């Protein structure tokens, strides 16, 4: 009875995950969807703790103190970290949590492996036979199933790649780790991957042939120490692969990578579902694996690049090469003073603000909203043009501006905005670069060629705020800055905006 209630709990969990994900993809229901999935998760977790029975022995779980201590510590740290993190640091937080999930999946595989290794890779099955009046207890000793071994290895490899990769992605996003690539790194990566797979296949084969799949087969002695050493070798190589996999990929592509690693962790969680024949882990894991993969592809599409292209990291590598080769005379750019900017903006009819990564770094979203209100009070029509991949993650800008209470209908998506630029007096580009680079349309040699951009050069005036003339993530020069219509306003986005607000008030 109790066990069937657990089945019901898992059913509820699985259904809420699907509904939750569905609702999360619609702005009106997103928050509710998140809550529903969280409730389902709670039901599934509590059900597991109190109702789980071992399939064979029918035993309850023990070590409750450890379990609750773990839940408490993880829960408190998780809540605090999630509550305290700044809105701009959200993407690295997601990456960090994703890594935790991957590590969890890898640890499960390690424990299960040790468990099987301790019993010499055999399952002992007790079966009761009825012989006449008597009941005999036959003890069968079977070699561990290949499926179980494969799942353990898959969980270990995927989980640890996801963990190591997420940690690197996290480090890159908060600037602790710089891009790093060496010649022939892709080949090294391939070699590591093939070694990981080869070792795993070898180990599974070794265990299977020595232990024997039927109880008739003679048991050969199995050197557990040797097998374990190789197992940890696979673990170490997987961690290294995770690091090397993410290392060469440029910061601008991190969202795509995090999304991909996210779906990896989903698959790793599903491996746990196989292992314990646990339906909620299986559905949840596969669901995220599939949805995560699709989301990754959607993100790539928004940048008009293929996933393969991102993974090979040609953005960073090819970009710097093109930048190096294309040091043609760019001409001079012109600078504009704060007071001129203030005048131009105040007497404009329509202003469009293009926020980018620089705004996020400078935490300038509140100052930006203040400027918008001030200009509106002077009768200027102010809107925001949001490029799909502006900021550190798709949708990142929307989240940031939402934090500063910018109204929803002021945010325009790329297509809408592009129609409006022609009738716009001033475009203020705040820390955005590649998403407004006309080379994406005009220069087939450019690494970002083909990426849809915001056509800011259609506006009458373009004011670009940047910290310096340094190229953006893609490492390429931006012709926009050298056009006659464009004026540069150097400085930290937040400071510039505050000064600008003060100037406008003084007018």
């Amino acid at each position: 009875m109790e066990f069937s209630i657990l089945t019901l709990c898992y059913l509820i969990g699985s259904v809420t995950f699907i509904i939750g994900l569905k609702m999360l993809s619609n702005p009106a229901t997103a928050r509710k969807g998140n809550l529903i999935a969280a409730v389902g998760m709670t039901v599934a977790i509590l059900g597991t703790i109190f109702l789980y029975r071992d399939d064979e022995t029918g035993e309850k779980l023990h070590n409750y103190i450890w379990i609750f201590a773990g839940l408490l510590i993880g829960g408190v740290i998780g809540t605090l970290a999630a509550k305290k993190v700044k809105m701009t640091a959200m993407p690295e937080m997601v990456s960090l949590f994703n890594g935790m999930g991957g590590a969890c999946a890898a640890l499960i595989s390690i424990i299960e492996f040790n468990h099987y290794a301790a019993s010499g890779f055999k399952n002992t099955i007790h079966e009761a036979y009825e012989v006449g009046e008597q009941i005999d207890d036959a003890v069968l000793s079977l070699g561990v199933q290949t499926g179980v071994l494969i799942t353990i290895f898959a969980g270990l490899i995927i989980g640890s790649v996801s963990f190591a990769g997420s940690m690197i992605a996290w480090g890159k996003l908060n600037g602790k780790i710089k891009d790093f690539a060496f010649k022939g790194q892709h080949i090294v990566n391939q070699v590591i991957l093939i070694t990981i797979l080869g070792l795993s296949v070898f180990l599974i084969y070794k265990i299977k042939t020595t232990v024997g799949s039927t109880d008739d087969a003679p048991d050969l002695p199995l050197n557990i120490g040797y097998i374990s050493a190789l197992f940890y070798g696979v673990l170490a190589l997987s961690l290294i692969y995770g690091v090397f996999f993410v290392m060469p990929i440029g910061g601008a592509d991190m969202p795509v990578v995090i999304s991909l690693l996210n779906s990896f962790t989903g698959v790793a969680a599903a491996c746990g579902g196989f292992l314990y024949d646990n339906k909620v882990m299986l559905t949840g894991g596969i669901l995220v694996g599939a949805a995560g993969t699709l989301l990754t592809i959607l993100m790539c599409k928004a940048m008009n690049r293929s996933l393969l292209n991102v993974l090979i990291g040609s953005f960073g590598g090819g970009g710097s090469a093109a930048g190096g080769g294309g040091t043609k005379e760019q001409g001079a750019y012109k600078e504009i003073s704060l007071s001129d900017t203030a005048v131009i903006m105040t007497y404009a009819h329509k202003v469009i603000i293009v926020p980018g990564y620089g705004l996020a770094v400078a935490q300038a979203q509140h100052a930006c909203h203040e400027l918008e209100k001030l200009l509106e009070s002077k009768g200027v029509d102010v809107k925001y043009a949001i490029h799909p991949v502006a900021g550190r993650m798709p949708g990142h800008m929307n989240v940031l501006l939402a934090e500063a209470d910018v109204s929803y209908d002021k945010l325009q998506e790329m297509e809408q905005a592009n129609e409006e630029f022609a009738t716009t007096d001033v475009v203020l580009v705040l820390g955005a670069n590649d998403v407004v680079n006309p080379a994406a349309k005009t220069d087939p040699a450019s690494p970002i060629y083909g990426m849809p951009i915001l056509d800011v050069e259609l506006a009458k005036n373009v004011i670009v705020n940047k910290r310096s003339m340094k190229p953006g993530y893609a490492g390429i020069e931006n012709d926009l800055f050298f056009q006659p219509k464009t004026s540069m306003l150097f400085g930290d986005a937040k400071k510039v905006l505050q000064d600008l607000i003060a100037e406008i008030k003084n007018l």
Partner: protein
Amino acid sequence: MEAVLKWLSDNQQIIYIVILMIFVGIEVIGRVPSVLHTPLMSGANAIHGVVIIGAIIVMGKADAGNYVALVLGFLAVVLGTLNVVGGFVVTDRMLEMFKSKKK
């Protein structure tokens, strides 16, 4: 060949779940606007935290004397909980902002 067929029939329930879930996963988020990419990723991130259930099972089955399993299992529970709780709270924080400004 026989082994593969046997494996298929032994695990058919699981195989059906996997195939159907792949399609559900793709279908369910197929039309997400790019505004919601980040929260959706974060929400999906929290959902794969379901791996915590595996950690709890592992922990609960470990022998009281097996300290390696206990410590690793404990670590797995902590990390899994971080993933679940942190994931849902972060997602909620992101979405909260979307809501407050829509009014």
